[in-house]
């Protein structure tokens, strides 16, 4: 087992940094969110809404209409809320004690919020968290309070209403924060260019360093230029097209430094969200239930290592044909030999399932050489249900110490309602779809519509009863597993349902459109067009259905998860 904190093979000052930078540009190509998930706010609000509905059920604020399933869910919710409230939230102290956002200061009435935390901050219980925490609580550098959070609409009248307990329960917001956190697990997947491939590009770095001199500056080199240089393995200096394109980039950089202005309008093509250098966070966030990748004259589908395939870029998408963005990534990865970097990557160790006896086969073990055998575009990544299992197992086995681990299964529920995540693609409109979804979220959740939110809460609770029944039936069938949860089944069933909702004759227009991901990656009118396409695609009904089902599954999971807690 590698040490998760082990340094990268390439020291920060090695020539390899050039290629790590190129690797990062590939991270961008991986869809400004390599293979990513919903925007953070979607993950948080799904989980938060599931918890708020639990509060509504527990407080008899929904019409249960003598429905035994709902009654059982309400009873279980009461117990779950009490148990969650007593568990340590697992939050580290905020990065800064002082807030600087004027809206936050105005809302909480001070620039130095009082957390009333115990000496060991992480022991602050979920029920005692005094502020809604921001989504940049860990990655940012501020006081960590989100002044914009509120239970929302109907739930504002329950959670924190003086007529009832009067205390605002922020458990949902904290669990929601943890639900988004797997997208910030930047050490899950590292990709590197084998050191022996550094060749020509290390010469480029020296050349640029000399040309820029002490003034420094930033050189913007196109991927094509970098590939030219990689192919021109020179020792005496740059030649040919490589030299020409690098010289041009250096002159542009000097002009920019001289003028002190940025003359471009975006990071072209941009960068992978949540990526830093060689980190490709989301490659284990897919569960390909389409079966499209199964066409293989070699009988080696992506499911070779797990019972369900995750991301396998060479077979990406609804038909197993990578879109233009994915093909561009394949070209660069194959040309340069970009592979998973096993040692510093947590993903291969975290998301391999072994010896769990959860009625699914174990993962076929892969060692370092297996992971680094071919470039990462030909490497089957671990599937989303394994990611969920990782977190569930940690919480199940030590709930008092592992509330943050609930973030993995909760995150997986969120990803399993994204069509692109269930056909294993970071293209086909993945990012613009998710941006558009996030921008419509407030309307989907009726945040300004009290009656609408109440009706929706009841509808979601009814759906949750079905998910709860799956869990209870499984437990009855496997009494030896106690209060365990068949998390891999739940994620897989939700993913299959998602695909069923979106597949059909029109799927190549919506949602799986091969045009919009490559349009999205270039800032400007094409990116705008890509997002607006998904916002205006007339798909609200389907998206709302997916969202409500995802929240329902999370609700059933949370209620059931609490049953392993003290």
């Amino acid at each position: 087992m590698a040490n998760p904190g082990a340094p990268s093979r390439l020291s920060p000052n090695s020539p390899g940094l050039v290629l790590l930078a190129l690797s990062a540009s590939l991270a961008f190509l991986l869809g400004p969110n390599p293979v990513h998930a919903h925007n953070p706010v979607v993950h948080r609000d799904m989980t938060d809404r599931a918890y708020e509905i639990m509060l509504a059920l527990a407080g008899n604020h929904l019409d249960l209409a003598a429905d035994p399933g709902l009654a059982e869910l309400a009873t279980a919710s009461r117990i779950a809320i009490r148990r969650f409230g007593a568990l340590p939230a697992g939050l580290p102290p905020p990065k800064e004690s002082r807030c600087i956002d004027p809206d936050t200061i105005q809302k909480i009435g001070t620039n130095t919020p009082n957390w009333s935390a115990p000496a060991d901050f992480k022991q602050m219980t979920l029920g005692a968290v005094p502020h809604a925490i921001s989504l940049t609580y860990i990655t940012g550098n501020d006081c960590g309070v989100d002044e914009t959070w509120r239970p929302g609409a109907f739930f504002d009248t329950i959670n924190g209403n003086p007529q009832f307990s009067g205390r605002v329960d922020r458990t949902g917001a904290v669990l929601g924060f943890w639900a988004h956190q797997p997208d910030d697990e930047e050490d899950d997947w590292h990709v590197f260019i084998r050191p022996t491939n550094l060749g020509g590009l290390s010469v480029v770095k020296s050349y640029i360093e000399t040309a820029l001199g002490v003034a420094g500056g930033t050189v913007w080199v196109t991927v094509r230029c970098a590939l030219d240089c990689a192919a021109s393995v020179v020792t005496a200096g740059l030649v040919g097209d490589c030299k020409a394109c690098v010289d041009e980039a250096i002159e542009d950089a000097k002009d920019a430094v001289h003028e002190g202005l940025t003359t471009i309008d975006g990071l072209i093509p941009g960068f992978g969200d949540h990526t830093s250098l060689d980190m490709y966070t989301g490659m284990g966030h897919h569960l390909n239930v389409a079966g499209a990748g199964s066409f293989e004259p070699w009988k080696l589908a992506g499911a070779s290592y797990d019972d369900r395939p995750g991301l396998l870029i060479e077979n990406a998408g609804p038909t197993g044909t990578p879109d233009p963005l994915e093909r561009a990534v394949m070209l660069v990865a194959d040309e340069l030999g970009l592979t998973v970097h096993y040692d510093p990557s947590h993903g291969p160790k975290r998301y391999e399932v072994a010896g769990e006896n959860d009625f699914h086969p174990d993962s076929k073990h892969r060692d370092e050489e297996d992971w680094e055998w071919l470039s990462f575009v030909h490497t089957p990544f671990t599937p989303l249900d394994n990611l969920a299992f990782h977190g569930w197992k940690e919480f199940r086995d030590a709930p008092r110490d592992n509330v943050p681990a609930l973030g993995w299964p909760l995150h997986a529920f969120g990803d399993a309602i994204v069509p692109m995540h269930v056909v294993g693609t970071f293209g086909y409109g993945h990012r613009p779809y998710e941006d558009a979804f996030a921008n419509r979220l407030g309307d989907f959740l009726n945040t300004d519509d009290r009656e609408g939110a109440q009706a929706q809460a009841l509808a979601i609770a009814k759906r949750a009863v079905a998910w709860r029944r799956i869990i209870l039936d499984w437990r009855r069938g496997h009494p030896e597993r106690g209060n365990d949860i068949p998390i891999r089944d739940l994620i897989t069933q939700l993913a299959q349902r998602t695909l069923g909702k979106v597949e059909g004759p029109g799927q190549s227009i919506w949602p799986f459109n091969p045009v919009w991901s490559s349009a999205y990656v270039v800032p400007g009118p094409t990116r705008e067009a890509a997002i607006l396409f998904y916002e205006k695609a007339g798909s609200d009904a389907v998206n709302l259905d997916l969202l409500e089902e995802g929240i329902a599954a999370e609700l059933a999971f949370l209620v059931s998860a609490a049953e392993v807690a003290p």
Partner: protein
Amino acid sequence: MSGRAGWLGGAGALLALAGCVCAGRTGPKPPGADPYPSYLQAVESDLGEAARGFVDGKLTGRQYLDLASDRAAKARRYRDDSSWRDAAKQGDRDEDRVPDPLDRCDSPRSTPTNEEGCPPPNRPGPGPGPDDDQRARDLLDQATFLLSPACDGTPAPRASNPLAWGHGTGDTRNTFFFVIDKVASTPPGCDLFYEMEFRIDLLHLGPDPLVRYITVLFRGGEDITPLDSSRAVFSLPFGEFLTPARADLWGALTNARSVRWRVRAVNGAQATSPWSPMKAKNATAGGMTF
């Protein structure tokens, strides 16, 4: 020499590199591993050649994908199947990466085959069209990476957050200002950039909302409050040179019904912070002064 010719000229060197790649591997070798460096070298060479063939337009997207997945599958087979590895010791005359003892057909160079070295069944579906292929090629010219030797060793910036925006007062009333959470400074010569993305609902008379998405990029050196350690302020003045997106943003803000925006930071070595959440912020009442 054209760029593509440069690539082809480097092909020999790439083959040599591929040899280095295998030599650099660590970890256990499969039993009877004699041929594996050369076998994997050959597959990696095929993959690189296929990639260059597509970029050069010599292969269609369909042909490229078929060839790439074929070679990758054979490499995986080699890794997993000892009989395949044993057979590989006896050579591969037509270079289709099916070992000669298992190969029943002579294959043209750089074509996919089935397990017996013969033409495979056709992959179902039409595959990508010429427009899709060109999009993939174009991305190589549009995609850039940042390189700044002065940033070597600098960690990724922490996340930033939008704090406030609004127009100025007096002489700056036609200028928009954006205030964000400043991230830690970078070493001299190492640039820091802030990318901001705006979602603006415009005032208009039509029944449907009119929405604009606009992305702008500011260099850290454009911060008009360099001595403030916690906030960075960027301006969008009317009447001065503005990039197309900045001009677009200026116009949209003057006609905004509501504004949401987010920000992220990146340094010259392409180390990037996460995006902040998209925050709804009203323009600061009464204007802003700096």
